[in-house]
């Protein structure tokens, strides 16, 4: 019939303007939108008798499935127009797969991005990621700030950084016009500040990563040196009584910086004229002259790996190290007892005043200690109950604050002050224990291994970000990567040789990258988004500008201390 022909004819011509035919329509190329690949069930076929055991899907879901099936045939696979939005599709738990034999199975694995971590796991992951090597500098920071001031500063910084972290987490939800489900914080910065936002957030992220890697190198040289010394002394039964002031009991605590008037000196001056073997050892195993270079041989090859996922298997070492440190500190505190005296403003021979004006050094360290803002969105994405995100984040921050307070306060309080001055507390508190001390030897070994596994991961992150941004390819060639790695390793070696003050490195890099990610960006983005929605009020504006000023002051004042 003529009518039928014309009917069918209109079906053969694609509707709309006569554009390039996209080709045989059954070639599906990979749509980057995972929602278009969401699973749907296969209808039970050939069911002769209704079996009560078989799960039946509701009519509503069955109709929705047919709808989605049909709509998917109406557009090109890359077209997002007719992809089912989240709120109409049943939740993943309600999806069943029907086998043609008639039985139904619930889906076990969900597409990536659906949160599967319970609150406890999320809190633990945040705690684990935040606790880094800055834990070793907290007692020194408390010493620099004074005991009372130190404790107050730790709690206040915890609250401030928590608030800024909350702002980071909420920043995505204030963008309503674009789909932000795959965004991380640098993407939000790029959305608000254009390419300036993107490369500046890249720059600051690199500052924090490279700063961390330099600290790692210094610490690794330190721990490797002490481990080597311990093993050598143990093998050769040398009792290492050098001229460093220390306590004279079974729990020795040393004050390495007392000799040279406050500057940590990495050369140990020991005169054992009759023992040339020891002299040789001292010559070849020197904390600042030789050990940093030995590390190059170990770590540079590891940095060149294309994918360091092998190292992420050792993540558990970090937790073990922290737990061991907590145990160590508790044990030492029990053995050494508490030595606290409260002098408010004037320093005494053995004690520091409660309130000191060098507390910004502590805030600098804490900015890095509480830093997780560049990856918090990713960590919270996998939380099963997204509505608990803020609660879980707050709990994690509280636990981190408690951990820092615990270790800082215990080390500070138990430092044996009558023979030694509190001023002796080193920037790395393990340095206050002699290399012959077994417990701290174990701590150093743990930390050494842990850092050796985290170092390639940090290098990978820095490399991916920098090379990916500059060259567009995360592994342009072995030469680019090698040069990049040499640069980083060189920086670490130089610092280890000439400026091994991890407290200093931490506070400078912490204040610098914290300036962007902790203080300026979250507050500025919040102010801008409120302004765009006309919800900006004077108190909010003043409060957030105050936060920005605090961040700036934090950085500037580091250079005056």
């Amino acid at each position, binding site marked *: *019939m003529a*009518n*039928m022909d014309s*009917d*069918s004819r*209109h*079906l*053969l*011509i*694609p*509707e*709309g*303007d006569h*554009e390039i035919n*996209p080709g*045989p*329509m*059954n070639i599906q190329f990979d749509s980057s939108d995972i929602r278009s690949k969401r699973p749907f069930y296969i209808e039970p076929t*050939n069911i*002769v008798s209704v079996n009560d055991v078989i799960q039946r899907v509701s*009519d*509503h879901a*069955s*109709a*929705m499935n*047919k*709808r989605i*099936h*049909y*709509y998917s*045939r*109406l*557009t*090109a696979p890359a*077209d*997002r*127009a*007719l992809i*089912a*939005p989240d*709120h*109409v599709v049943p939740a993943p738990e309600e999806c069943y797969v029907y086998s043609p034999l008639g039985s139904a199975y619930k889906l076990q694995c969900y597409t990536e991005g659906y949160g599967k971590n319970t609150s406890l796991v999320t809190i633990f992951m945040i705690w684990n990621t935040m606790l880094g090597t800055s834990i070793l500098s907290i007692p020194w920071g408390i010493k620099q700030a004074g005991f009372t001031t130190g404790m107050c500063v730790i709690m206040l910084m915890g609250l401030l950084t928590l608030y800024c972290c909350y702002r980071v987490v909420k920043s995505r939800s204030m963008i309503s016009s674009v789909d932000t489900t795959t965004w991380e914080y640098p993407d939000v910065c790029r959305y608000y500040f254009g390419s300036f936002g993107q490369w500046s957030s890249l720059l600051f992220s690199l500052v924090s990563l490279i700063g961390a890697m330099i600290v790692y190198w210094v610490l690794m040289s330190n721990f490797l040196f002490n481990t080597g010394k311990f093993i050598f002394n143990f093998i050769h039964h040398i009792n290492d009584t050098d001229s460093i002031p220390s306590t004279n009991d079974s729990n020795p605590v040393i004050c390495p910086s007392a000799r040279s008037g406050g500057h940590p000196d990495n050369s140990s001056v020991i005169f054992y004229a009759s023992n040339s073997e020891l002299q040789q050892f001292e010559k070849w195993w020197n904390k600042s002259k030789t050990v940093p270079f030995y590390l190059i041989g170990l770590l540079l090859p590891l940095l060149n790996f294309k994918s360091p996922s092998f190292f992420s298997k050792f993540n558990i070492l970090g937790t073990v190290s922290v737990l061991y440190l907590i145990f160590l500190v508790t044990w030492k505190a029990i053995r050494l007892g508490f030595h606290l005296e409260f002098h408010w403003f004037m320093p005494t021979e053995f004690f520091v005043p409660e309130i000191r004006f060098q507390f910004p050094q502590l805030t600098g360290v804490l900015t890095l200690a509480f830093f997780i803002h560049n990856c918090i969105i990713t960590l919270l994405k996998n939380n099963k109950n997204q509505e608990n995100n803020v609660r879980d984040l707050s709990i994690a921050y509280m636990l981190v604050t408690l951990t820092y307070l615990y270790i800082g306060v215990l080390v500070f309080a138990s430092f044996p002050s009558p023979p030694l001055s509190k001023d002796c507390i080193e920037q790395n508190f393990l340095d206050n224990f002699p290399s012959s001390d077994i417990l701290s030897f174990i701590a150093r070994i743990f930390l050494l291994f842990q850092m050796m596994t985290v170092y390639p991961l940090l290098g990978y992150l820095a490399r991916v970000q920098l090379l990916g941004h500059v060259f567009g390819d995360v592994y342009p060639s072995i030469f680019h990567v090698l040069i990049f790695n040499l640069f980083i390793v060189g920086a670490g070696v130089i610092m280890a040789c000439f400026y091994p003050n991890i407290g200093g490195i931490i506070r400078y890099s912490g204040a610098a990258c914290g300036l962007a990610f902790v203080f300026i960006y979250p507050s500025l983005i919040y102010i801008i988004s409120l302004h765009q929605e006309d919800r900006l009020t004077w108190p909010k504006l003043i409060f957030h500008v105050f936060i920005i000023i605090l961040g700036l002051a934090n950085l500037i004042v580091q250079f005056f201390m």
Partner: protein
Amino acid sequence: MPNTAMKKKVLLMGKSGSGKTSMRSIIFANYIARDTRRLGATIDVEHSHVRFLGNLVLNLWDCGGQDTFMENYFTSQRDNIFRNVEVLIYVFDVESRELEKDMHYYQSCLEAILQNAPDAKIFCLVHKMDLVQEDQRDLIFKEREEDLRRLSRPLECACFRTSIWDETLYKAWSSIVYQLIPNVQQLEMNLRNFAQIIEADEVLLFERATFLVISHYQCKEQRDVHRFEKISNIIKQFKLSCSKLAASFQSMEVRNSNFAAFIDIFTSNTYVMVVMSDPSIPSAATLINIRNARKHFEKLERVDGPKHSLLMR
């Protein structure tokens, strides 16, 4: 006579981005060749070949877009657009934040209708209702319906709430098509007789291009209330597959030990689906019955033909 020479129009209008192209694509099984979230407006007169219910041509128009070019084009072409309009379907986006503007454009369309085609039927679709929370939907729809009814006076408008993600779109369009068929009650009575004579469980009458259910008869309660839309989607999907092979769909028989279903061309504008639950009746018998009924129903159409332009060839 000018009326028979010119095709009668069904206008699908609404603001740019309100969902008209997706709606047309879904109802008429057109492949959308481009991203519907485009920034340009629709200039859609001559390119539209979508026909249904005999001689009705579907035209899509963006009304009240931001583009001044479109505004001018629209205003200058207004009489052309609104001439010979049989049906106006106006789509409102429920999420729109410019309610005043939407109503303003709607009213100007109504004015044009009053001038050019005062007998046209008017339907208003409040679309994208899935974006509203479930407990608020009835309330919001009732508000909108009252406003629209009020604004449309002296013309009468029928309002529906729709979303492409549930059955409401299909139901709304089915109701629209149902109201466009003049002798629909008579059709239904004849359909019921037909069903009872051949002892069918259920008989459905579909519109040919869109497989919208025009009328149906069922002799007992069916479990799935969504079956009409499902069948429509399945067949439209099948038609799309057929078109890839340059074949066209004519009829289908589905049978197992419990039932037999027949989908076949019926009249020039309709398809019929007959569901028999008695498997002992041979297919040939049912097919003969359908063929005889076809002749009867075609006569019905022709009898009412001259008076009602819709179903006229």
